[in-house]
């Protein structure tokens, strides 16, 4: 990344961090219902990967997918409005936190059944191959998904069909509340499975936006060239618990402290300094992000609630929901 690209990535990560904090605060104020799975701490994976992708590429994410939606073009206002059940939300308040989707930018959804979207990403890559485009598909998923059958079925299919798809694991060390190491037969839950499918399996520092960008660019180039899928295991850490009800008390204090010191935003700031970008410029970018998110919160709050009649639309392609004639 050149200084301008890195500064843009830093600003985008800061926007995501501030939006996640806003989501957390709005939840405590009772303005966000249901649950949220915040991705604070994971920003470098979404932003680094996106920096390596092209506009037409497809992305599939999980219920912890706010950062991917925003990295792929959803605005903080659209996302927060969705979380606050506003008609102006990204999915018109029919999806909620776990289903942020922006199809117009190729962000084809956030799926809340663990691992279910991996075969879909393979299918989108298959479609790209059939249509002869140079698009690729990327599936982001957690370490817990690596023990789901769909993970293995998707990897095998993608490998035998040589599909242009990247499987990017966000290994944050915990499968919900349980250490992934306690329930997984190999130490690196994603990368160690790659040899079984004859595809590359790499590990990257998921908190280093530059490292992620470089790894994804390399593997994406390989996929675009027709060399098939790859697995990238990005090691990272959640700043919050699994979901809103989880204070994450099961995590050792020393571990939390170590990872918080390895913050993706701080790492990016360090790299910007190394590239000679003045601190004032970086601070300005952070302030822009803060201001943008502040305005997004206010705008999202002002959005109207959906018309109750909307409950009976969008089941079918004709817009309706009728099951009988």
């Amino acid at each position, binding site marked *: 990344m050149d200084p301008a690209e890195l500064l843009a990535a830093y600003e985008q990560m800061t926007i995501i961090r501030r939006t996640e904090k806003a989501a957390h605060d709005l939840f405590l104020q009772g303005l966000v219902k249901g649950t949220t799975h915040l991705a604070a701490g994971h920003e470098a994976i979404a932003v680094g990967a996106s920096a390596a992708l092209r506009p037409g590429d*497809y992305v*599939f994410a999980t219920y912890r997918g706010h950062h991917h939606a925003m990295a792929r073009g959803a605005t903080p206002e659209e996302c927060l409005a969705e979380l606050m059940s506003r008609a102006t*939300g*990204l*999915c*018109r*308040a*029919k*999806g*909620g936190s776990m*289903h942020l*989707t*922006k*199809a*117009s930018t190729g962000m*084809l*959804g956030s*799926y809340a*059944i663990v691992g*279910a*979207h*991996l*075969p*879909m*990403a*393979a*299918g*989108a*890559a*298959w*479609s*790209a191959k*059939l*249509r002869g485009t140079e698009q690729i*598909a990327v599936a982001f998923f957690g370490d817990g998904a690596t023990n789901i*059958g*769909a993970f293995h*079925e*998707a990897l*095998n*299919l993608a490998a*035998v*069909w040589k599909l242009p798809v990247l499987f990017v694991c966000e290994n944050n060390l915990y499968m919900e509340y349980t250490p992934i190491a306690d329930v997984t037969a190999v130490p690196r839950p994603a990368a160690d499975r790659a040899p079984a499918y004859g595809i590359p399996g790499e590990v990257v520092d998921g908190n280093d936006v530059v490292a992620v960008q470089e790894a994804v660019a390399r593997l994406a180039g390989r996929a675009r060239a027709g060399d098939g899928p790859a697995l990238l295991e990005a090691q990272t850490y959640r700043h919050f618990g699994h979901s809103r009800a989880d204070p994450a008390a099961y995590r050792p204090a020393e571990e939390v402290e170590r990872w918080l010191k390895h913050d993706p935003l701080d790492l990016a700031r360090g790299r910007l300094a190394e590239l000679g970008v003045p601190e004032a410029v970086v601070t300005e970018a952070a302030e822009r992000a803060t201001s943008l998110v502040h305005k997004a919160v206010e705008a999202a709050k002002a959005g109207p609630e959906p018309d109750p009649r909307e409950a009976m*639309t*969008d*089941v*079918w*392609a*004709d*817009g309706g*929901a*009728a*099951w*009988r*004639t």
Partner: protein
Amino acid sequence: MADVISYREAVAEGIAREMRRDPAVVCLGEDIGAAGGVFKTTVGLRAEFGPGRVWDTPISEQAIVGAAMGAAMTGMRPVAEIMFSDFLACCWDYLANEIPKVRYMTGGQVTVPLVVRTANGGGLGFGAQHSQATENWAFTVPGLKIAAPATPADVIGMMAAAIRSDDPVVFFEHKGLLATKGEPPPPDHVVELGHAAVVREGADVTLVALASMVPVALKAADVLAGEGIGAEVVDLRCLVPLDMSTVLASLGRTSRLVTVEENPYQGGWGATLVSVVADEGFALLDAPVRRVAGECVPLPFADVLEEEVIPTVDKVVAAVRGLAAY
């Protein structure tokens, strides 16, 4: 084309017609390529359209349906085969949680125009894990269209409608009907989903049937005619959209109703159908409704046991006799 076509040939013919007219139609499934499918329902497709459009998959039902979904979301019209309908349970997440919900939960952003074809039902002695009539499973899920043709012409016409549909369709091909024959339909024959057919007229009782139960109902109607009872037979063709207007219109002519279902009585589609009749057509009835349905047991192996469990002509005739005398 030949003068007659079998139900199994009609499946491949129906798919081939759509593949010829739309390059976005692609097929995937286990053994569907050179092997032509375990039921020989995809014979000739690989030879005509090549491996670039007819893809053999591993035994990976989640990957098959999940990949079909991803392809459907991005410009293709995939036709995925799940060999036996019992195996839909292996990819039930996609049918219950992913495919039917994605349009709704994205606020209408995503369309999933795919067909999941599967061989359904009993009668062939395949035992409990290869013989179930499972269309009622799909019937519990909002967001899936459900087609279950009974004749070769309907297989072709409904396949056209299913593949052209912008909504996901689960297409049940009945194993017990694969060898049956009928007249091949003309080019561009399309049977819109959600239109039931009155396949025999009668004034005394309406028999509503689906797929393999249509010929059972027709044979029962023949027997009943010999006894002076006129049975009208409605081939439902689809469960979603459910054509209640044709059922209610028939009931207006006959005033008596029997559903003939292969799926188990418990949770079967007939229960929904008669509940709509109770809500909206009660005044049309001159007798209680009757449901002839499968027993609530796994399908047994032996012919004599299987016949005990699924509806037969005799069971339908007995149910109607009781009603006619009411």
